[in-house]
């Protein structure tokens, strides 16, 4: 009671954290249960002993190692290309001060709110035309552009506030446009770029519809699509679905933890301004 009064914020945070972690805990608990145990005692009971078959069966069934690699390749490439693309766009719009800046930004925002369902058929036909259907490269291109739409919008407003004195000083010292970008703009806005990189990676990792449509062969499949294999026509395998969910969420979680500092730095930068 005393603690409640003394640390109201802390208690609220702990409660919030418990609330966020609970679903993940339920996934963990059910991933380690046998199907019979799940059916008999329901999803909230604790497992009696460790049942790892769900995890291993799922791993071999979808060749998860390969799937993981696909997701890494696609999400990693998209993160890098998406950030590069956003940077170039935003440099032109935010610092270059091109004409019709507002229209460009509006265009990117519009591209951002476009539902992906509307893109499915055009992308399917286009990729078939150029022979990229069922290749990971097609997804890398598509998502780099999709993510860059948001990235451009965000980075443009960040770079618009870039201190002009620095750029002018550099220009007086004889730096060209290219040099200013790499020597001035990129180092200063690295925290923001880092945040974008992390976001792009995780967003692409979680994408479902386009990978489902564009990558029909299992060899090219991504993690989120592989999870869908367990959805039967009328039945679901609850424990294996949990096991798969666990396997699917772990890599993104690890990535997030690795880049946690980048994220906090990025957020702090915004705060000081």
């Amino acid at each position, binding site marked *: 009671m005393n603690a409640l009064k003394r640390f109201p914020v802390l208690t609220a945070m702990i409660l919030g954290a418990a609330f966020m972690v609970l679903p993940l805990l339920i996934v963990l608990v059910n991933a380690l249960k046998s*199907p*019979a145990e*799940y*059916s*008999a*005692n*329901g999803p909230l009971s604790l497992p009696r002993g460790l049942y790892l078959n769900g995890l291993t*069966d799922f791993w071999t*069934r*979808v060749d998860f190692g390969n799937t993981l690699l696909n997701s890494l*390749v*696609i999400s*990693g*490439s998209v993160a*890098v*290309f998406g950030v590069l693309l956003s940077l170039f766009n935003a440099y032109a719009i935010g610092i270059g001060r091109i004409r019709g800046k507002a229209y460009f930004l509006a265009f990117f925002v519009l591209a951002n709110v476009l539902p992906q369902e509307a893109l499915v058929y055009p992308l*399917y036909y286009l990729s*078939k035309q150029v*022979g*990229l*259907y*069922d*290749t*990971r*490269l097609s997804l*890398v291109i598509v998502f780099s552009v999709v993510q860059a739409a948001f990235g451009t919008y965000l980075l443009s407003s960040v770079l618009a506030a870039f201190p002009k004195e620095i750029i002018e000083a550099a220009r007086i010292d004889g730096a060209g446009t290219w040099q200013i970008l790499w020597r001035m703009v990129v*180092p200063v806005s690295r925290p923001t770029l880092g945040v974008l990189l992390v976001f792009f990676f995780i967003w692409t990792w979680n994408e479902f519809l386009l990978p*489902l*449509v564009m990558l*029909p*062969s*299992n*060899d*090219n499949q991504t993690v989120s*699509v592989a999870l*869908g*294999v*367990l*959805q*039967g*026509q*009328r*039945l*679901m*395998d*609850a424990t294996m679905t949990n096991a798969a969910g666990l396997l699917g969420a772990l890599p993104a979680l690890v990535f997030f933890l690795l880049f946690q500092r980048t994220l906090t730095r990025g957020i702090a930068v915004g705060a000081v301004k």
Partner: protein
Amino acid sequence: MSKVRRPLTLTAAAMVGALLITSCGSSDGGAQGDGKTLKLWHYEAPNSAMGVAWDQAIKEFKKTHPGVKVEFEAKGFEQIQKTASMVLNSGNAPDVMEYNKGNATAGLLAKQGLLTDLTPQVTKYGWDKLLSPSVTTTSRYDARGVMGSGNWYGVPNFGEYTMVYYNKDLFAKNGVQVPSTFAEFEQALAAFKAKGITPLANGGAEYPAHQYLYQLALTKADRGWVDAFELYKGKADFRDPAWTYAANTLSDWVKKGYIAKTSSGAKAEDAGVSFISGKSPIFFSGSWWYGRFRDENKFKWGSFLFPGSKMTLGSGGNLWVVPKNAKNKQLAYDFIDITMKKGIQNTLGNNGGVPVAAEPSAITDPSSKELIENFNKVSSQDGLAFYPDWPVPGFYDVLVSATQKLITGSASPEAVLDELQKAYDAGAPTS
């Protein structure tokens, strides 16, 4: 700070390069039609009856086709459902694939010209002789993509039907007789209710609820009624005696407490689990639960056909289809033929599936025998009445919400039936 930057950009550049190379390398062109590879897709779980039987079929296929590689890919139901028309329209189509039967699925693909007409193969291999008429309804589609007549576009390997699953232990413990007529069935429901047990497992948010409804209508129906509703041969009238009886009875059952009012929001999975965990003594649902019940039920249980009804829900199972763009069609036909042979069909039957062409004597498992005999009985008396959500695209959601209203009592049976009529008339083909 600037010291850190250089290696970081370098690694980033290296990463990009490596990623580019690997992602470009994936675009290997599709195999040519050299008769050396069979590309097979299906979406059955590896431990299901179909999964086991088809795995055996692959082994047999390899034995009879030395030097042929089988490229099997396990797919998800949704995955094939959502992407089929795109994949089949490309050069990446498989040679043989499991696909959902019905007008909105196989019928649609057939209409779009994405499937191979299998009629010559069906007569050549004699598959039509193995299948009963109500099973073959879902294999044939006319030019509009409506099932029941026209060319063969798929071959079903298994059947499915609905039955009453019951918990023998709970029946014995509460002194309830196993019913053989509809009146006895209602007496059994009342007996359980009197003991404070809600007898029927139900999932109102998914298919179980409207399968109760349709089954009740079927107790008053005949083949002509089903054909009118499912195949548009005549007018489907939801205010006719059968539908009226069904809606009134279901709402009556809820009022009497045979079906829990709270089940309106439950999923099929919840209904199944409530049967497996021994909470509900009776669950009316499909043969797709059979294997799971066999593995997980910790009590004695059995099944019987819905009492007092000549017809029940069911149909031929999912189809083998051969895409128009398949590269090795002959291999695909050979594979389908293997799965129709006795050996594979018997394996299907012994693993809790419903084979369409097994030898009854080869089924050793007694409970599987019961399952298959009941299917053969329904199928031979032309009693497979398909599923209520088939006739109209999007009818599934209408049925779910309509029966939910029936269960919660937020709409009268008449209003519910009118709602169904409206959706049906809007979606059914007019010709």
